[in-house]
């Protein structure tokens, strides 16, 4: 098709008409823009992977091990192969060349024990749900029917399920490895030169101060995104195309190439509409590799969509840590040292970043506080359970929970308000930038401001008064107030830092901006949203930067053919890193177009000012819009010889530091002391996430995060029975909260902008989840503390709360129910008292 000069003139006039009248900068950022992506989603015009139907497509069903640990002694696929409309039945033996590897991208130590994680196993299964065969049939129903006919003989092996049990090395998850211990990782402030010696601090406090020792349990959770995972592979083009419900299309493409031997250039990965992730879709999964292998084997498109039961068992789990904290303080409650011991259950394999997730806690247990001495010890262990990896917050919620719980214990010991003990220890706003005892440089923050605002919104003093009144009147329903003043590290991550941590990739992000001849703008981002609203937020950023209408910006993502470079979405990194890349691409576009504008205006580039989408010659009324420049460069009838036509630009941004959102969350819980049932009365949070691009989206992120964190405190737990069968294997038993379980929240923000990115943003995706869990449990414990209760193990079900109340004899003696100890002779969670000797019974 050719375009006549007349047509170009018409387009040019149209483009000029489209110039925004009020295009001053800063008009989009900060607006409560309704989301662009909603229109399709509210009308059902969606592109979920499971919607895809291709000619000749086969449907897959997986045959999974019902046993946690077993040797496979035989697989008979003959009956399945004979079933109606079955195209093929495959076992690992049918792929002698392998199917790829579910790689661990972050070996936390050089000697980490990392069992090979193959998509399909032929000799030994190491957890329930592992795939031993796959059936391809003409329909999903026929594939599932036939999968039932695959006859697998297993010899059961002893299984180890619990992290503490695994530590003993009595039953081995992988006998060939000789140990369940995967890696030990340590950070010591004295050794690192970032602080003092924690053992000395504790010893001194035992002499004259306070030592508090506590063990906490981070129960195992399931991310439980609403869209079950689905993968479609079309092997019929020059590039093999995989549509898959993933957060990480770019990383997946790389790892497919790296582990199957397929040239990376022959693989295209598309993340179409993706229905939630929360970390649960950042894995490269066995199902993706198997679907790819079967499609290539048959030369036909293949689809696999998991059932919810498969998802709960086989998509990675989260959390599952034992934590022991030893906190030393002076008698007035000034913390002098913190020692952390972790045992993290990785499940059967070290997942993509599974070993690294607990290690992220190393920089977070010290939280917002000025602790002079600190030590973090993390032991990861292998068990015969579903592999564990990032779940919303990934390492930071675990750390935040423990430190915010024990700060309450310190407050109780000193006999002051929990907020007062925090203020005594936190970094003052005038002390930023502040190098933490873990070696992180916190660039900005204002804990005083967020806390003051939260208290005001919460009605802190009034609720404390009500609590007192209920106590005094012996009300069977007691009121507890929970505090959580958290920080987190977001914006993963400076590539050099990741390199020092042996992480397998960088932490940069990429963006491209294409100015189209008609004045529209395409923004290509390497981030891969699945509910976060990048299309809307990135449009706001670009609209402001380039001075074009919000509606004229289209954000493209999640397809390696379009967004060819990227590191995807996780760790609250998209805006902080990816948004900054968008800003930089926009600035390059402005700079590139400037040279053309100068030429077209017959002016010197140095004399041009760019504002509101327009280049103006300083001191004159001469000027030209950037969209007009875009059209002129499309025609390129007239341009300087030293320039190339077009004003598109790419930018890749590698952050120089993490960002450190923080906030103060306050929760009031009513606890019925007769039944153990607790009910949320009020929840207020004031989060400081730096500058906000779209408050509407931010509020949504906070709300959703809060409920996931509250769910850990109150309801959710993935439970295996003694045989390693997942008892909570459906939504009947894995109890996601419903609308009827939750309340409306009060959310607000204070702002201390991040100093390390142009936009001053910090990230918000995980804040709610990180902060809310300890706020809720602190509230429940606070309601019952006068009964001598100082801990309740999560989830704080009515039964657990009731049992704690029944068991409390008035003394400070409530060990978390059923919780194994770090050492068999360790004291219960009894308060050790000011001497540190404790009064353990």
């Amino acid at each position, binding site marked *: 098709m050719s375009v006549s000069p007349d047509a170009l003139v018409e387009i040019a006039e149209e483009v000029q008409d489209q110039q925004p009248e009020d295009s001053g900068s800063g008009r989009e950022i900060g607006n409560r823009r309704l*989301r662009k*992506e909603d229109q399709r989603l509210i009308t*059902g015009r969606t592109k979920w992977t*499971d919607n895809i139907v291709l000619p000749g497509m086969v449907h897959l069903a997986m045959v999974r091990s019902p046993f946690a640990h077993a040797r496979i002694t035989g697989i008979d696929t003959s009956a399945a192969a004979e079933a109606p409309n079955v195209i093929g039945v495959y076992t690992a033996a049918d792929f002698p060349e392998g199917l790829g590897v579910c790689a661990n991208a972050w070996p936390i130590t050089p000697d980490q024990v990392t069992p090979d994680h193959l998509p399909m196993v032929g000799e030994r299964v190491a957890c329930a749900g592992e795939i031993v065969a796959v059936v391809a049939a003409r329909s999903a129903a026929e594939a599932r029917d036939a999968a039932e006919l695959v006859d697998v003989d297993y010899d059961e092996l002893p299984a180890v399920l619990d992290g503490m049990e695994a530590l003993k090395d009595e039953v081995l998850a992988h006998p060939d490895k000789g140990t369940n211990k995967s890696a030990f990782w340590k950070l010591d402030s004295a050794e690192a030169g970032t602080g003092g010696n924690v053992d000395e601090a504790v010893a001194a406090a035992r002499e004259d101060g306070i030592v508090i020792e506590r063990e906490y349990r981070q129960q195992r959770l399931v991310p439980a995104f609403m869209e079950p995972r689905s993968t479609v592979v079309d092997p019929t083009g020059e590039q093999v195309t995989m549509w898959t419900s993933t957060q990480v299309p770019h990383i997946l493409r790389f790892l497919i190439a790296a582990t199957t031997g397929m040239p990376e250039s022959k693989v295209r990965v598309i993340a179409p509409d993706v229905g939630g992730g929360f970390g649960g879709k950042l894995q490269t999964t066995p199902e993706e590799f198997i679907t790819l292998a079967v499609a290539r084997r048959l030369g036909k498109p293949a689809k696999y969509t998991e059932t*919810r*039961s498969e998802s709960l068992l086989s998509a990675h789990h989260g959390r599952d840590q034992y934590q022991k904290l030893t906190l030393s303080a002076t008698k007035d409650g000034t913390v002098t040292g913190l020692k952390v011991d972790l045992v993290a259950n990785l499940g059967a394999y070290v997942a993509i970043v599974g070993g690294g997730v607990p290690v992220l806690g190393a920089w977070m247990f010290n939280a917002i506080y000025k602790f002079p001495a600190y030590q973090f010890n993390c032991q990861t262990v292998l068990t015969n359970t579903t592999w564990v990896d990032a779940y919303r917050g990934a390492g930071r919620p675990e750390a935040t929970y423990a430190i915010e719980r024990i700060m309450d214990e310190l407050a109780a010991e000193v006999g002051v308000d929990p907020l007062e003990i925090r203020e005594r220890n936190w970094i003052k706003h005038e002390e930023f930038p502040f190098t933490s005892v873990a070696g992180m440089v916190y660039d900005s923050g204002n804990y005083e401001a967020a806390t003051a605002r939260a208290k005001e919104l919460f009605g802190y003093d009034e609720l404390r008064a009500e609590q007192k009144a209920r106590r005094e009147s012996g009300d069977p329903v007691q009121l507890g107030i929970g505090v959580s003043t958290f920080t987190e590290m977001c914006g993963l991550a400076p590539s050099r830092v990741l390199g020092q941590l042996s992480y397998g990739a960088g932490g940069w992000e990429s963006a491209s901006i294409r100015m189209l001849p008609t004045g529209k703008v395409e923004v290509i981002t390497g981030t891969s949203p699945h509910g976060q609203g990048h299309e809307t937020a990135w449009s706001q950023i670009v609209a402001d930067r380039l001075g074009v209408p919000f509606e004229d910006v289209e954000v493209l993502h999640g397809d390696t053919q379009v967004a060819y470079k990227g590191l995807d979405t996780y760790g609250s990194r998209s805006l902080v890193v990816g948004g900054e890349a968008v800003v930089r691409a926009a600035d390059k576009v402005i700079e590139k177009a400037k040279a053309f504008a100068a030429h077209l205006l017959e002016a010197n580039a140095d004399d041009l000012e760019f504002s509101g989408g327009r280049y103006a010659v300083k001191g004159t009324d001469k000027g030209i819009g950037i969209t007009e420049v875009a059209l002129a460069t499309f025609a390129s009838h007239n341009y300087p010889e030293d320039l190339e036509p077009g004003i598109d630009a790419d930018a890749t941004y590698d952050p120089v530091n993490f960002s450190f959102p923080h906030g103060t969350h306050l929760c009031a819980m009513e606890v019925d002391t007769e039944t153990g049932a607790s009910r949320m009365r009020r929840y207020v949070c004031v989060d400081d996430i730096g500058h906000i691009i779209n408050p509407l989206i931010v509020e949504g992120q906070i*709300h959703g995060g809060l409920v996931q964190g509250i769910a850990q405190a109150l309801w959710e737990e993935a439970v295996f029975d003694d045989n390693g069968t997942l008892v909570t294997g459906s939504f009947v038993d894995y109890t996601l909260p419903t*609308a*009827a379980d*939750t309340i409306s929240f009060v959310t607000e923000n204070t702002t201390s902008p991040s100093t390390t990115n142009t936009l001053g943003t910090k990230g918000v995706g995980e804040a709610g989840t990180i902060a809310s869990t300890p706020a809720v449990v602190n509230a429940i414990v606070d309601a019952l503390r006068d009964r001598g209760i100082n801990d309740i193990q999560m989830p704080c079900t009515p039964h657990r709360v009731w049992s704690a109340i029944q068991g409390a004899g008035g003394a400070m003696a409530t060990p978390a129910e059923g919780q194994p100890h770090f050492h068999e002779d360790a004291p219960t969670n009894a308060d050790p008292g000011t001497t540190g000797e404790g009064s353990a019974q």
Partner: protein
Amino acid sequence: MTRISVTVDGVKYSDDVEPRTLLVHYLRENLGKVGTVIGCDTSNCGACTVHLDGRSVKACNVLAVQADGHEVTTIEGLAEGGQLHPMQQAFHEHHALQCGYCTPGMIMQAIDILKDNASPSEEQIRAGLEGNLCRCTGYHNIVKAVSAAAEAGAGSKAGE
């Protein structure tokens, strides 16, 4: 195979289906009505909620043969003449969706709530949505959207 005739989003379809076929599979696989989605296998999540003769049902809980001779409305049949249903509009305006996977079921159920009670309290809205799971929004904005739709008179529209 059993012959069924079902009106879906105003169009009458006749198909032979296996007796075991669930309505949700019939909608997705036979009719391409993929706006209605599947989120679980135990009828807990409500993502597949549609209207059967004007009342909400979980389409995974109804056999296709049970829909024979009946009228089904899905999320794709709500907007009329290019105009969003007030409930769809309310979900958009109140940011009541993030990933959007639970949204079709949520909207269909929310409309049903207003059929019984045109001006429900927050507690009644929450109780009415109990059978629909959302993992993204924490329900806060969904409740707000349903409440706003009710105030804007969506209940009368829902009754049509």
